[in-house]
């Protein structure tokens, strides 16, 4: 008998997708159980707001224990999780970031929140590559509006091609651009490249108990005033307030168990505190454990109905693994030396960015790469000093009183340019169960295969050429070296946007779920995380994960109400 039973929905995972599903279903009066593999986490008490780098070990710099720095809001997390290995197949090097805490990776993410556009949902129709989604932009547009309203997103409607506007009144006012951003924007205007307010899930006006941003302390540490969105300061407290959500932490789910009809009956998990194996049953099961973990659970759920894993008759579970194409360049700008000091923190993230601007050229076949990318701009040059300042020291190459003068002179004269591009799913990029490796509880682990194609490398080359043009126009000196696209491109998983491992579609033979994240073959098993992405787009996935989770949850609730499930 299951330890937990009688729920309308059992949700696995408490991040963006799980948090949204829990809130939507709980607010409709359904009884929801949430299982989180990590520990309980209280951002109101555990966020080191304002703590100085000098008060942390090694000035807070990243280590193998805390890769994004001592103060980063990742618990038992990072590229490796103790006792929970993963492997990369020969010739592949995949990086998988996990966080074992309530709220998962929403506690530390960059909060960049760009909508996918009409082209992004029908890419195959546009260029013949990859697949189309089973939905179009208009199907999800209302959910983007609702999600942005709940989450709180700053930005501006600019009416740009394939970058949809939000409904009036939804977006929060974006923060004023800083010097580096204005400089880049001026250069971009001259080069006919758009540079507009970015969209981030950071409040600039209060919502309920959540305060507006006060423009201090890094968002990556989490935000105890609730300005920077994370599941643990908004969706989960809201869902708990309905009285309809129960959360169990330290519950490492490893399997979906089916009943004699072939429907999902329960999930099995390890209670990490006691090491005992438990079960939780419900009328529906929703996997929102992340693209990697969800695929792992499905693949490990072998039964007489599904010898290759639950809902995997199509063979698509684990396939179509995609991450964002990443690359970065930086430059020093002599004209920014010795500039006047002012508080350049801003919202501690993007104020302006460069959206993709070459759709027409691409459609006419004038580019040698098929999909888009955007720029994230590192323009807060006079940011809080950390160990990275040493980059200026070695740039100066001096010592003594000259070095101290050089530090004052060069501080704030560097700007960085980051590529975030769309990867097209390919047959060489997927995850599977590693036959030889198990985690500390004996659960088989994932093995990743990953390979970029020419499409992505050509895109990076274009980014490099364009960035050189921008840097030249602004009188800058490239500092990041002359690097080939092969060396410049990120490793798979490194951008932490992994999606696609249980894609939605119109055809059960080539997809795992329908347009509502409902498994084709197990009607009461749903997926509400990045696994269901049919394609990636160059937009950061979290906002879309939440909008889809909301849409899936509406459908699930209707199905429960109509007794279809």
């Amino acid at each position, binding site marked *: 008998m299951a330890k937990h039973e009688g729920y309308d929905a059992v949700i696995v995972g408490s991040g963006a997708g799980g948090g949204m599903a829990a809130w939507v279903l709980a607010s409709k009066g359904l009884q929801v159980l949430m299982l989180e593999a990590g*520990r309980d986490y209280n951002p109101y008490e*555990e*966020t*080191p707001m304002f*703590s100085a780098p*000098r008060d*942390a*070990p*090694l*000035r807070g710099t990243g*280590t*193998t*224990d*805390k890769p994004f720095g*001592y103060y980063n809001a990742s*618990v*038992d*997390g*990072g590229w490796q999780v103790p006792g929970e290995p993963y492997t990369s197949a020969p010739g592949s090097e995949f990086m998988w970031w996990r966080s074992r805490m309530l709220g998962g990776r929403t506690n530390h993410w960059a909060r960049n929140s760009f909508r996918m556009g009409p082209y992004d949902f029908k890419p195959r129709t546009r260029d013949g590559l990859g697949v189309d989604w089973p939905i179009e932009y208009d199907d999800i547009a209302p959910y983007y509006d609702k999600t942005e309203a709940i989450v709180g997103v700053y930005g501006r409607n600019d009416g740009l091609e394939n970058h949809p506007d939000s409904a009036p009144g939804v977006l929060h006012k974006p*923060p*004023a*651009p800083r*010097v580096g951003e*204005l400089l880049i924007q*001026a*250069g971009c205007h001259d080069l006919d490249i758009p*540079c507009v307010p970015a969209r981030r899930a950071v409040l600039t006006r209060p919502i309920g108990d959540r305060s507006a941003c*006060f*423009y*201090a*302390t890094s968002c990556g*540490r989490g935000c105890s005033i609730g300005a920077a969105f994370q599941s643990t300061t908004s969706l989960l407290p809201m869902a708990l307030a309905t009285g309809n959500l129960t959360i169990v932490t330290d519950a490492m789910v490893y399997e979906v168990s089916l009943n004699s009809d072939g429907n999902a009956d329960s999930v099995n998990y390890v209670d990490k505190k006691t090491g005992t194996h438990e079960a939780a049953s419900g009328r529906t099961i929703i996997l929102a454990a992340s693209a990697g973990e969800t695929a792992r659970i499905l693949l490990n759920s072998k039964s007489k109905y599904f010898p290759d894993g639950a809902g995997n008759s199509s063979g698509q579970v684990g396939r179509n693994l995609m991450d964002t194409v990443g690359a970065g360049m930086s430059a020093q700008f002599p*004209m920014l030396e010795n*500039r*006047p*000091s*002012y508080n350049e*923190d*801003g919202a501690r993230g993007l104020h302006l960015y460069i959206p993709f601007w070459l759709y027409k050229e691409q459609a006419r076949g004038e580019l040698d790469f098929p999909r888009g990318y955007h720029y994230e701009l590192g323009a807060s040059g*006079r940011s*809080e*000093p*950390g*160990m990275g*300042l*040493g980059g200026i*020291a*070695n*740039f*100066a*190459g001096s*010592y*003594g009183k000259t*070095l*101290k003068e050089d*530090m*004052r002179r060069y*501080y704030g004269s560097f700007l960085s340019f980051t590529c975030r591009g769309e990867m097209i799913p390919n047959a060489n990029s997927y995850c599977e169960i590693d036959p030889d490796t198990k985690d500390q509880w004996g659960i088989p682990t994932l093995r990743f295969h990953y390979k970029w194609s020419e499409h992505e490398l050509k895109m990076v080359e274009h980014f490099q050429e364009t960035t050189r043009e921008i840097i030249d*126009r602004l*009188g800058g000196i490239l500092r990041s070296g002359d690097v080939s696209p092969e060396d410049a491109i990120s490793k798979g998983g490194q951008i932490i946007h992994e999606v696609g491992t249980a894609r939605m579609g119109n055809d059960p033979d080539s997809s795992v779920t329908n347009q509502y994240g409902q498994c084709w073959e197990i009607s009461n098993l749903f997926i509400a995380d990045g696994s269901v992405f049919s394609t990636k787009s160059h937009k950061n996935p979290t906002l879309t994960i939440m909008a889809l989770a909301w849409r899936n949850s509406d459908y699930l609730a209707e199905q429960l109400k109509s007794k279809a499930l």
Partner: protein
Amino acid sequence: MKTILDSPIHVDRRTTIKWLAATMVAANTACSTNAKFLGEEIPPVNDAGGNLLGVAAKSNGVGYGTDPDLMNPVVPWSRTMTRPQLETTSALCDFILPEDDRSPAASAVGVPDFIDEWISAPYERQQNDRGEILAGLEWLEQQSWNRFGHGFPSADDQQATELIDSMASSDPAATEQSDLVTFFNRFRYLAVGAYYTTEEGIEDIGYIGNVPIAGDYPGPSDAAMAHLSGVLEKLNLTMPD
């Protein structure tokens, strides 16, 4: 070897080499640092430093783990530098970041101790730096004895400049860097990071953020905008709306 530090005897370079070689053989230590040392014939030293500055203690290897208390940070590992290593570190720190009319010397704000904290940490990156830093400090000390007849902490400005100039690269883009250039750049990186994260260093460099602002973020100051206008004018660009 400690007697060398205690007595002001002159040790010539050939003697130092002989001693070092003898120490290496006697200790049967692996040479983890394949030092090029700008063509000098001094053999590599072992990764604990060794010899003139003594051998650094073994780190207790305790990291802070994957779920440390973020609200009450502590450094759980022990420091490992010998007193002579710390003294040479301190002297080098202060030649890199001396006192001037705006801010104190590096040693006055705890930078040497931070470098000890860094090279004693049990993490891979810090452990890699450890061998490099300790070997470089040892080289400095040997060179100081060879050239001037006293340890590096007693070097005057001219002597220190001579030694540092033989390490510091004036061409940051140089790809063929010797181990000494790598050592000096790495040491400077650590000293600068430590220094400009102190209250005094932050004030010196002019970082004025991390304070809460009520209402909208105000954007650049008038002075900052005036400067930017000048930059855009030189670049023949228009200030965005």
